[in-house]
């Protein structure tokens, strides 16, 4: 068996200059810093521009359906907790079509990192509003401007006590790599919403965002829910970058199960064996009393 030689001659399909390249670079750097070999990493995505990212990294890939990255990742993570499983997909994918899965993932707390490429737009379908497009912004479907409020998924994560909630900026490679490194190392669900301006369909250039991001204040206590929610709630034009909320890890998904069976991949656990099944099959049989000759004849 040779060392993994991955067909990385995959042509990148993003627009030249797209901040998605920044997320890609930051993720690669974080994986390197964490010293994770490619075959111990699984990247999971849905469908969209963002969701193409896994094809550009040296890792296992599950590029599933639009909106369904989270449940697929949960299945992968339960089946093989020895891999580092990371979801990387779009704001439409994870907050729109897949909103219910993310909501319930907060409850389950699987050991996953979820990276949301938040470009506030449906880019691959050419520019409709995403759940995070600000009120009033005009798009190629909302011609008079978006008239519903944006989804507040970071705040929703916080009220569900998701133990690692951060916002990153795709225009800041170092900062983002550092956040991703912490997120991946964190045990339990880590949510990282990355501001990723779309330079093709978005309303503002990267610099507009650069001028409006600010670091989470030094004195912010990331264990404080109220303060974290305040930082999380999207002002349409001010973005606190950094870890907004971080508390003691709580039990991750399937902890009780894993206590019972150990930590290996389900696929290579010892066979249940015929005996266990045969016991059940035997229990179906009602033995006739007549076979036991001592019993009375009713």
């Amino acid at each position, binding site marked *: 068996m*040779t060392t993994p030689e991955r067909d990385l001659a995959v042509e990148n399909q993003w627009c030249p200059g797209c901040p998605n390249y920044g997320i890609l670079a930051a993720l690669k750097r974080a994986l390197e810093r964490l010293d994770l070999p490619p075959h111990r990493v699984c990247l999971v995505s849905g469908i969209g521009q963002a969701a193409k990212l896994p094809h550009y990294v040296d890792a*296992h890939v599950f590029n599933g359906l639009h909106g369904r990255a989270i*449940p697929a990742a949960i299945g992968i993570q339960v089946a093989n907790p020895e891999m580092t499983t990371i979801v990387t997909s779009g704001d439409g994918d994870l907050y729109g079509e897949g909103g219910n899965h993310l909501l319930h993932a907060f409850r389950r707390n699987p050991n996953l990192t979820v990276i949301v490429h938040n470009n506030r737009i449906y880019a691959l379908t050419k520019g409709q509003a995403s759940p995070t497009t600000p009120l009033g912004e005009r798009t190629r479907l909302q011609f008079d401007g978006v008239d519903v409020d944006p989804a507040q998924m970071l705040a929703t994560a916080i009220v569900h006590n998701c133990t690692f909630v951060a916002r990153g900026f795709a225009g800041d490679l170092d900062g983002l790599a550092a956040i991703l490194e912490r997120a991946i190392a964190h045990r339990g669900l880590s949510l990282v919403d990355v501001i990723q301006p779309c330079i093709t369909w978005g309303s503002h250039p990267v610099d507009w965002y650069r001028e409006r991001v600010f670091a989470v204040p030094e004195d912010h206590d990331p264990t404080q829910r109220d303060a974290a929610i305040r930082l999380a709630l999207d002002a349409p034009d001010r973005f606190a970058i950094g870890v907004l909320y971080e508390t003691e890890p709580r039990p991750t998904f399937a902890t009780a199960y894993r206590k019972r069976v150990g930590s290996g991949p*389900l696929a290579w656990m010892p066979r249940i064996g015929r005996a266990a099944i045969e016991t059940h099959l035997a229990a179906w049989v009602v033995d006739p009393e007549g076979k036991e000759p001592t019993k009375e004849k009713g």
Partner: protein
Amino acid sequence: MNDRNVVIAGAAGEGIQTIGDVVATSFLAHGYPVFLTQEFESRIRGGNSSTTLRIGSAPHNAPRRDADVLLALNRVSQQHYAPQLREGGILISPEVFAFRDLAKEHGGSERYANAVAAGALCAATGMPVAVLERRLRETFAGHGEEVAAANARAAQAGYDQALGRLGERAERPLPPRTHRYAFASAHDAIALGAAAAECRFMAAYPMSPSTHLITTFARHPELGVFAEQAEDEIAAIHMGLGASAAGARAMTATSGGGFALMVEAVSLAGMIETPIVIVLAQRPGPATGLPTRTAQEDLLFAIRAGHGEAPRAVLAPSDPQDALRAAIRAFDLADRYQIPVIVLTDQYLADSRFALPPVELPDAIPGPQLADPASIERYARYRLTDDGVSPRLALGQSEHLVCLDSDEHTEQGHITEDLDTVRPAMVEKRLEKGRRLKGEIAPPSRNAVDDADLVLVGWGSTKGAIDEAVSILRDSGRRVGALHFTELWPLPAMEFSETARYWTAEGNATGQLAQLLRMEYGVETEGRIGRYDGRPLDAATILEALS
């Protein structure tokens, strides 16, 4: 003893299931087979429900409409079920028996009324009351000696009173026999078959009549199947696909409405070539329909569900024995062809318990089919091969990186826009798997077909009813036979005799099997027998249609 059909009717929560269980196990313990079916409404208390025991010297694993004995626990049930009681049949009900009074008198409390009723039922059916008493003692063992004893006394009182009242009409006590029967439902069997096939992961969202499957895995961790209740059916199947991609055999179970939500993922499974077993436990539709009743309305839906074109298998076992086999086979086909496999059952199969010869595991149970990473030089998940099947490695299995993609993809699993070469090759690869699969699909079972001039054709759960109809018609001198499909897609190549006339018999109104036979074999059916009132197809329905 003759074939006896005993209906125990009452409101939800009134205890008919317990009565049914103790009486059924009494017969089994006495060496007589019982076929138990259940009918209930979509509510938790009240309404009309029933448990029916079909008892005889030999198993009659098929539903019968008319009752020889009706035990009705209340007046509403009595009215509701009375039309089913055949002329001369025995009615046991509060109108004719003072259950409660006897319970108070002999058990010390009205709460032993059901034991009184069960005792009366024994008198009517020839079951020695001592056998029943032992079942009651077993059932109430956890409740202390006094409760057990009171139950026994109440049963005896019911038995005695009924014996007296029924006089001549009481069945003579049956002699004990040494016949041994397994007593289980098809869903019991599917759970064990899945575990035997090394299923490791199940996610599902509760939905009647499928919920028993995930419940079994949750209740019996020793079966080795991790079971998770998902937030919805979409999550359930995607979790399964994730686990399967990571190497764990995986399944889900649902009913028609939940399956409808999984359809996009069925298409995904076809594209990423990742095995998944889906139990689709049918109930009458459309929409919410009759949630606790039975039907066979989702055959063509299951065959066609999903956008685009990719192979799948659809199986439809006919009884628990067959369901054990079907479950093992479903995982094997899913794994070898890297496809979704749908197992069609229904409320009747799920909630009925069959009397069968003791069920054994097949000798060889094919396990997971992952490739050996050491044998691979340079891995490509969708390597083009003669049979369309690419060696499958799991995510994380080895240092070979695995790339699964829902877009049309290259052999390496990357998104492609190559329409000239890659796309046609990948379409043909997937379809080639379907052609090979077709070659190993089981033909229908044959019951007295060779000399038949009229052949009944059925599928799935209706086998018992159809076989019963065949034997009744044969007895009356008609040359009738039956073909029964339990593997429905792809359909195997086969010949239909030109001389016989064909009638389909199935649990729907549009003749779905008939449509399928015409599409696949060009066979014209002369008649289509369908039952679509929410009850299982029975021999009587077939006989009426043919008369």
